[in-house]
């Protein structure tokens, strides 16, 4: 298992996240895809730490922080979604155009 293996897995995961975010119509699915991308980044951080600086803990710590921030973000995002859903009666993102210029 080399660094390349980890990076490959992480980039696949990231691309799946991107694909999901671009193609899912349901807003819940998009949020989940974004979480996938977060996790791809976390894998990168952990891998880089393990292979490049095995003596330190910075990468793992940063990954922990990101998880925390992602959890907090999901909380806010879901609260927003609920508010939007109550107003528009839809979960499809193409119908959300309140901020259209």
């Amino acid at each position: 298992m080399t660094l390349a293996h980890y990076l490959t897995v992480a980039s696949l995961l990231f691309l799946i996240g991107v694909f999901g975010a671009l193609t899912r119509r349901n807003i819940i699915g998009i949020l989940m895809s974004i979480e996938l991308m977060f996790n791809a980044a976390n894998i990168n951080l952990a891998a880089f730490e393990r292979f490049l600086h095995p003596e330190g803990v910075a990468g793992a710590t940063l990954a922990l922080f990101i998880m925390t921030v992602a959890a907090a973000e999901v909380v806010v995002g879901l609260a927003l979604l609920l508010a939007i859903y109550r107003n528009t009666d839809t979960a499809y993102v193409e119908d959300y155009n309140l901020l259209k210029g």
Partner: protein
Amino acid sequence: MIEHAYLIPLIPFFASFIMLFGGKEDPHSNMPWVGIAAMGVCLALSVSVFWGAVTGTVALPYEHNWHWFSIAASIAGRSFVYDMPVGVLIDGPAAVTLVAVTLVSLMVQVYSVAYMHGDVRFKRYFAFVSFFTAAMLGLVASSNLLVTFACWELMGLCSYLLIGFWFEREGPCEAQKKAFMTTKLGDSGLYLALLLIFAKVGSFQLSQIYQFFDKGLMPATIATVIGIGILAGAAGKSAQAPLFIWLPDAMEGPTPGSALIHAATMVAAGILLVSKTYFVFLASPTAMESAAWMGLITAFLAASMALVSYDIKRVLAFSTVSQLGFMMCALGAGGFTSGLFHMTTHAFFKALLFLGAGSVIHSVHTNDMRQMGGLSKKMPLTFLTMLIAVLAIAGVPGLSGYYSKDMILADVWNHDHLMFWILLCTALMTAFYMFRLFFLTFWGDDRDHEKFHHAHESPALITGPLVVLAVLSAFAGAGLNHDGLVHKLIPKPTISVMPGAAVAAPAHASEAKPEASAHQASTEHHDGHLPAWLHMTAIVLVLGSITLAFLMYRGPTYAAADAIKANLGPVFTLLDRRWYVDDFFYALVTVSDKVAALAFWIDANVVDRVFVDGWGLLMRIFAQISDAFDNLFVDSAVDGVGGLGNDLGVGLRSLVREGQVQEYLMYAAIAFSLAATLILTR
């Protein structure tokens, strides 16, 4: 004692500043005594130097220089440091002049304490007088022509201030401007001469310039130009023809101030400058002849003008101009000793004449001699001292003027006989108009009873200086002439390479030789005398003209004079209008004014209209064309680029369905991956 000679100009200089800035202005201020004390110290110093020179304990010339400043210069690739010292140079003439100047200035100041007492600017007057004297002493004692020139200009300033002392009145204001501008006209010539000297010699030190001339290094033509420039300056300061017009008007100042200007400071400066730079004239016979003729013409014109004036101060002013002409003529004729000798004696008797006239004016409150007469009964002391002065200036044997004038006439006789006869004629006129003044003022009976009744002898502060000056006027000539003292004190300078000898080319031999030999002759005969018969004739003629003046002006009326005036009307008008020299200058100024007006008209109507306005119009048309081009092409290009950007943006926006978050995201992802690709594959 002579090593302290530098103090002589400095003491009155500082005294004037103390008087000017110390204490309050007060008509009864005690400040003048500061100036008088300072002048007393200077007189003591000067006399000690003079006495040392007479007894031979002090070797003259004495020169001492101090460092002033240096200039690093580079000429023709050679760099050197030019050193400019400042110092004192006391030679025989300077020693004599220092005594004369300090003595006359002291007498004038003592006199002025009484004369100017109660004037609102009492203190300031004395500060000016001290400053004036300091400038003159600086000019006399300086070893450096640059310092001399600075003092020269300071005297111009002081004369301006003193002539216009009563500036509330219009006359003094006009007179001071006239004096200043006329002297400046001459000074421009002097300035050019100094520049030329520095350009040629590279030094302002008199001793170095003298050596340059002494070795014959100066070309004769340049020497002539320098000489003429110096003469122009001297003509302005010493009131020589045709720049004498300012001196009669300078009578508007306080009378003791006039005495100072006429006897000690201002007018003697020109003569002194010529004597200081006499080697220039020795090197240039042309400049020498010019000096002689300028002096001669001045002497004659001024004496003739004095014949008809009724203003007592004017007559004295004309007589000063005339006597200065004598000195200048003597210097030009090769009589260095006699010219400076006359300057010294003249300083005493002319100061006495002016102070005496001031005493009379102080007493009768008028300048017009027609309202005086018979004053000998009221003012015996003034009368006696004036008698001595008048006898001295007329050249009556035994008094000081006789010795110096006799020496001048002898020098001129040896130089040129025609000049001698004109000068003798002038001397006779001098005797006549001085005694005319004397008889009109003091002799016979009173003409104006009111003024005569109020006339009184002046206080001791006024008569004291008169007596001192009278003693000097009587005996200074004989004293200085005793045992050839004046020749020992004031030897004529010589230069080793005479121009006549140098230019003795065969082709010009006929022209150059007589001049050169005349020159040599006058040098050898410096103590030569007039032929005995001529000497006697001159004395008899002088006495004759005095008798003539007595016959014409002794009584309360002067019918004979009026009859002559009636018969010779045009001549009198000519003299009364001062030979139209003033009118000539006035016309010159008027013409210049007209020319300036014409030039202004051309400037306003031709230059401004055609060139300035035309050029402006041309530029405006050009600007309009340029503006149109700008609008049509440049601005369109700018707008076009902006429009293009705008159109591009609008076009791109039409590709995107608005309000679709996922599409925005897709474009962002595409752009991001493109950017990432570009960066990573570089």
